[in-house]
């Protein structure tokens, strides 16, 4: 039925709680459906000589028009909500797979978006990308999940080797936790 493809796109995203792979083919199919509806609509109006006094012609034309709008609305909602999920994923432990699920256009959007957030942070002189959760203790114990070399702390350099435990200042390692290198033990 008309509009099914577009509705399925929205459902597909709604059912998932993360960011599933971008449905390039499905979007293309919706574009095709719109093309087809558009051609039919133009043809219908031409045939009727743009005379809409016959309610059957008017009704059919309006129906096609509405399906086109609905298709557009669904795809735009799909794109916009993917952007929201992408934005939210920045605040989570980063999952490498998310990058693979993006379309080329989304990759570009993400790059520009991060730039924009950085510009904003500069302007207000507050780095809004850190301190994402209510602070608890100043120090915390973490387990090293992936080797991440040596970091500098105010008490000197600390070597973070896989499977070792460390007691470190939270602000020094927040980014590493976010990137999934370190895991808080409690």
């Amino acid at each position, binding site marked *: 039925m008309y509009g099914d493809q577009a509705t399925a796109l929205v459902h597909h995203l709604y059912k998932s709680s993360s960011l599933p792979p971008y449905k390039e083919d499905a*979007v*293309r199919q919706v*574009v095709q459906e*719109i*093309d087809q509806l*558009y051609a039919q609509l133009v043809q219908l109006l031409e045939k009727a000589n743009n005379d809409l006094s016959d309610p059957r012609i008017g009704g059919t034309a309006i129906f096609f*028009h*509405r399906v*086109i*709008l609905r298709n*557009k*609305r669904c*795809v*735009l*909602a799909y*794109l*916009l909500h993917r*952007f*929201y999920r992408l*934005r939210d994923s920045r605040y989570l432990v980063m999952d490498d797979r998310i990058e693979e699920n993006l*379309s080329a*256009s*989304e990759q*570009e*959007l993400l790059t*520009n*978006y991060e730039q*924009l*957030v950085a*510009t*904003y942070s500069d*302007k*207000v*002189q*507050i*780095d*809004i990308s*850190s*301190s994402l*959760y*209510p*602070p608890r*203790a*100043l120090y915390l114990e973490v387990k090293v999940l992936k080797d991440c070399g040596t970091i500098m702390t105010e008490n000197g350099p600390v070597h973070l080797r896989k499977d070792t435990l460390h007691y470190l200042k*939270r*602000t020094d390692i927040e980014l590493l936790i976010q990137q999934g290198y370190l895991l808080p033990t409690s």
Partner: protein
Amino acid sequence: MQATSTTDTFQEQDINYDVERLRKWLVNEKCCNDILPYQEELVSGFADLCEFQQSLVETRAEKDELAIVRNLKEMELERIRYLLKEYLRTRLRKIENALFYLWRDKERWSWLSAAEAEYAKQLYPLITTHFERSFLGKLPEKLRALDERDGDHHSPGNLDDLDEFVFLYATKEMGNVTTDPSSPVTSTIFIQKGEVVCLRYSVAKHYLLDESACLL
């Protein structure tokens, strides 16, 4: 709500109540979908205070300030920075959610900070370009407009429900409040200081702005 706090038995404390105000505005933002007026003074005031305190902590560290005192100061800095950052983040998030409506709404637009307005202005073309690249640009030319206003079409995104329910905490006596302006039957309640009432945001808004109440 304020309850049997034992505060009155404490000795007089020289407390900076602006911290509480910053927290209050953060909670107000978190508890409704609307974007409230930006609290310029609070934000820039605390940003300066944090920077000043940070520099004190750093210079004194070289001298003989006790490590524990220093740690406590740093802990407090972290706590206040969290309030500040979360306040700004919550607002940006709401701006993103309402992006396609915001610029049409003069009042709300005027409630943004200069940096937020700039942010919204620059984000708009980023998103619309993405829409064009991914979808709109592939449509027949006459169908490429982002925002078709005829029929039942809406702008993308939604201005989240502005008439949601909220928890309102009366910091002053609010008197008789009309709770359901849309209903033909007028219903009012008397709200005393310290009471918590669950009601519509549209009713609460006025009292948030004049600070006689806050959200919880």
